[in-house]
């Protein structure tokens, strides 16, 4: 219970922080896309409690919630949508609502129920798509978002690239650990007397 309250508090703190840091983060596409949006996704993540994790039959396998998250991500991946969030207040409000509630929240719920193969597939897909985005943003001879400068756009491209590499390492490194090393680390952090 306390756990839930802390999570809620943390979520509201991050959310408030995002609102007040809007100007600073949205000044550059790199911080807009790769800092602000992930923070907002975290907000949604933190809102999920035990009860939500056990949605009904309709979310079997987590497909429904994952689909919601995927479509919302697709929407906010459109350069048009990002431009619109910068030029229209309504879109900005929409962003602050949908990114936590329609990406972070359902992603967490769906992920918990997803089949391991589906998870693996989505991870591979995420790395691939970050690669595509890096590819396009680094090289495009035009401005993809009219609101941002070209070299800022390139920074974002490299940001995508480094994120892809980081995720690849993060997700594959644990696969190399054997049970023994895992136990060793567990012992290190949670020593038992036996």
């Amino acid at each position, binding site marked *: 219970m306390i756990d839930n309250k802390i999570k809620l508090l943390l979520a509201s703190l991050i959310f408030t922080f995002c609102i007040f840091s809007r100007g600073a983060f949205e000044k550059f596409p790199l911080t807009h896309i790769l800092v602000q949006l992930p923070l907002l996704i975290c907000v949604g993540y933190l809102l999920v409690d035990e009860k939500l994790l056990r949605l009904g039959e*309709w979310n*079997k*396998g987590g497909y429904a919630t994952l689909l919601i998250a995927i479509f919302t991500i697709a929407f906010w991946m*459109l350069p*048009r949508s990002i*431009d*619109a969030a910068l030029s229209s207040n309504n879109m900005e409000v929409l962003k602050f609502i949908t990114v936590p509630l329609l990406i972070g929240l359902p992603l967490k719920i769906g992920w918990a129920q997803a089949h391991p193969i589906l998870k693996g597939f989505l991870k591979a897909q995420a790395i691939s798509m970050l690669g595509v985005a890096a590819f396009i943003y680094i090289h495009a001879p035009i401005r993809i*978002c009219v*609101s941002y400068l070209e070299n800022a756009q390139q920074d974002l491209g490299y940001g995508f690239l480094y994120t892809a590499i980081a995720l690849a390492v993060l997700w594959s490194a644990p696969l190399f650990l054997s049970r023994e090393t895992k136990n060793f680390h567990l012992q290190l952090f949670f020593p038992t007397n036996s």
Partner: protein
Amino acid sequence: MNAFKVNSVIILLGSFILWFTTDGLQALTTEGARRLEVEKQKPVMPNITLETMSGAHTRLLNSSGHVTVVEFIYTTCPFICQVDGGYLSRLQNEIKERAIREKVRIISVSFDPLRDNLNELSYYAKRHNADGHIWTIARPGVEDLKSLLKAFGVVVIPDEEGGYVHNSAMHIIDQQGRLSFILDSNDVQGAVKTLERMLP
């Protein structure tokens, strides 16, 4: 509720929203949307006065039945505007060889009228062989600049080196003064084809 039904509804709804917000997958970017919008709406452009490189005055929309190709530049631009100058020069040559030559004007309009004095404009013209007849370089009055850019939907942001970033494209205005097509600056062949279609 059955998971299959829910998933189908989400997929349908999600696809519909994406389809709708991208104009049927045709425009993923704001620039793409602007072009699509222009082709559908064909908005009438403001008939402002421009000062050409020779110091003469001309109207953006002229009454003698010309089609006008407008490109926005600033002459001190180190890169894109120079490359675009090359494309327009090719367009000028293509037009000269065709029957449409009496009916087409090309105007490079500076959106930096304070720095781009007549000397700078002429220098840009000389570098790219703008003949002053089919193709001229011009600047608007400072007071008209904002409404001009707004009408065309061109966004200009100052960059860190004292220059500007801006959409680069060929804007084609038909005989009735309506902005009808926007093409990539390098799409010279596409522009020739469009012009020939507009001037049968």
